[in-house]
């Protein structure tokens, strides 16, 4: 607790607690304030989170990574990041030009890669996850991968509807925290159309290097997609029957997580 952290871990009473939590415990004090080093560490983490919220996805690089699989570029009605942050409703609808460019097909599944609140998450993990999932989906008619700018989860409803997809999987950058700025989430929706409720979706969250890995995430995604196709639904009903090996997903409900209100990322 003192300003001088013990250097010998055997003598540091905090070492067993530090090993058990990422929380910023036992930072020391200078008077009542934070010592300089942990104060600057905090600022660095916040700067990284802020930069990723306002960062941009490298869509050309994504297209290259996904080739030869076809990609489509779309944009929501939120013209820029400031509008996106203030107007979640606009991030859930396609701009007219994008909507006009989508033609119906016969697709079992369409992937949408949405920037969401973390460009970093999309840049780091989205292509890997789509490729890992595609490798596990032989025989599936998978539509072009839609790369969506200024997009929220529900934009996948309109995209999936226009493309005639039976199932849409939206990969979205989750709101960055101080410890993890590049966490990706996946929302799976059966029968996408404008107006789908959040309770109709299944969610896999926390996909990043220190969280859920790409391969297990792809496994979960493919398991859920397969179950959804068999049972012709996603959402609460599908979640309840998921085997424990898959693990219960946090529902993308209004109350998330646990007791706190909506987090605004979806």
């Amino acid at each position: 607790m003192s300003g001088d952290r013990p250097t010998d871990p055997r003598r540091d009473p905090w070492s067993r607690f530090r090993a058990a939590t990422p929380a910023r415990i036992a930072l020391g004090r200078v008077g009542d304030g934070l010592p300089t080093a942990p104060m600057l560490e905090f600022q660095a983490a916040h700067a990284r989170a802020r930069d990723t919220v306002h960062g941009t996805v490298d869509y050309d690089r994504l297209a290259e990574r996904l080739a030869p699989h076809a990609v489509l570029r779309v944009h929501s009605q939120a013209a820029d990041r400031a509008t996106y942050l203030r107007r979640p409703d606009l991030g859930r609808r396609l701009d007219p030009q994008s909507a006009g460019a989508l033609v119906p097909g016969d697709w079992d599944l369409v992937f949408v890669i949405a920037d969401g609140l973390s460009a970093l998450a999309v840049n780091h993990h989205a292509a890997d996850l789509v490729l890992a999932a595609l490798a596990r989906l032989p025989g599936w008619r998978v539509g072009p991968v839609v790369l969506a700018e200024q997009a929220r989860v529900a934009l996948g409803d309109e995209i999936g509807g226009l493309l005639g997809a039976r199932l849409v999987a939206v990969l979205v950058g989750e709101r960055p925290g101080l410890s993890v700025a590049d966490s990706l989430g996946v929302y799976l929706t059966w029968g996408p159309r404008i107006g789908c409720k959040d309770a109709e979706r299944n969610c896999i969250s926390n996909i990043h290097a220190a969280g859920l890995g790409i391969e297990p995430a792809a496994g979960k995604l493919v398991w859920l997609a397969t179950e959804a196709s068999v049972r012709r639904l996603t959402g609460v009903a599908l979640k309840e029957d998921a085997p424990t090996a898959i693990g219960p997903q946090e529902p993308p409900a209004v109350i998330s997580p646990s007791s706190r209100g909506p987090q605004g990322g979806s």
Partner: protein
Amino acid sequence: MGKVDGPLLICLKGDHQRRQPIFCAEMSSQVVPARATMIPSLTPREQGAATEMAYSATLMGQRHVFADLRALLACASPRRSGDELAGLAATSDEQRVAARLALADLPLTVFLNEALVPYETDEVTRLILDSHDRRAFAPVAHLTVGGLRDWLLSYAADEAALIALAPGLTPEIVAAVSKLMRNQDLITVAAKCRVITRFRTTMGLAGRLGSRLQPNHPTDDPTGIAGSILDGLLCGVGDAVIGINPASDNLASYITLVELIDALRCRFNIPTQSCVLAHVTTALDAMARDAPVDLVFQSIAGTEAANASFGIGLSLLDEAHQAALALKRGTVGDNCLYFETGQGSALSADAHHGVDQQTVEVRAYAVARRFQPFLVNTVVGFIGPEYLYDAKQIIRAGLEDHLCAKLLGVPMGVDVCYTNHAEADQDDMDSLMVLLAAAGVNFIMGVPGADDVMLNYQSTSYHDILTLRHLFQRQPAPEFEQWLRWMGMLDEQGRLPPQSGDSTAALRLLAPAGAP
């Protein structure tokens, strides 16, 4: 200007012509009385459909008309993104001031006769109107909203007068008057309010500043949580509650966590209370299994529909309240509930009924008040920039929520916080926490390093609490202060200096369980 007939645009486009400056003498406002006030014999129920009255004011030669009371309140609100998102906000700064002019002249009785959310379909409206104490209201019954602001700021409105008035105020009256207040007013009036609650500690006393120790962990790891709790205790934090937001809301982890805190509390004989911030139904299940439940938690909102989206209603809260009371675990009192609120929750549930987000938030305090909670806090910056865009909006909302709750007799604390997609940073939280300490906030949050690693947002830290306590000469709750003295953690000036690893308190708290 006479009565305005017929349907009117809620928000007239502002006239952007530049006019010569015109001073106060040329400002005028005219309020068209609500029909209800002209027929005082009608009950709120009977007036349900009879309240489409328009309000107007003339500012610098331009007349602004507001279609009904909801529009007037919304347009009078300081600018915030949630009202803009809902399409309720004033469309110009002049229109906003015009709305305040009209609001200032509105008799308070209008709010008792005109329901913003229908009485017939909303149990929160029924709670507000049916439980209104007309005798307590009598001293201000003749006032307008502007008159109430002036009275609240006057020396006549002292602590005793404000405590006596609280049952006579409704959320709508309180929200309305707050819209006429500058931040300075929100602080000075709140500082005169006192709302005292008791369980194992006494919160809200003069000269005190409480803190919730919030030791959240991304996977509810018991050792990790214990580490955060012990660090907080060594900073003297946790007299309001040691309260964990669980990573997963299920009965087994609820019981594990509540037992973990209870074991620490008993082992070190700490006068405080525990809470696991899971859904109220989980707490009911845990109480049915004889888990050591101190405070029962629930998020609440200002309309029946918004509460339904949280999976609750007044009767469920009643049931939980009775169950918690029956445990009789409090030692100095029996306030045993803990509520969280926050502007924007009703809109996000599409349950705001066209009411601006600040007014509908204050209605949640009427829900809280009914159950005499031990703690209530607004989670002011948590909801995101689509409701409160930046630090200016967060700071204003935090001060509004605090004052409005205190005026209603609700023991308000504030989670001074922001998310990484809001235009805010820790400097802004420093500002808000200092303003709230000046306003006499009951408690704020203590999160290790201000970084909540489970909920992924930033709040106030253990260090922040010590800073405020020493800056403002505040102590924690008296029972907890006594414990800190007994642990040898306070110096001769009553401050809590850094505790070295070999201090008595550190040796005692950090010894492995089972050690002597």
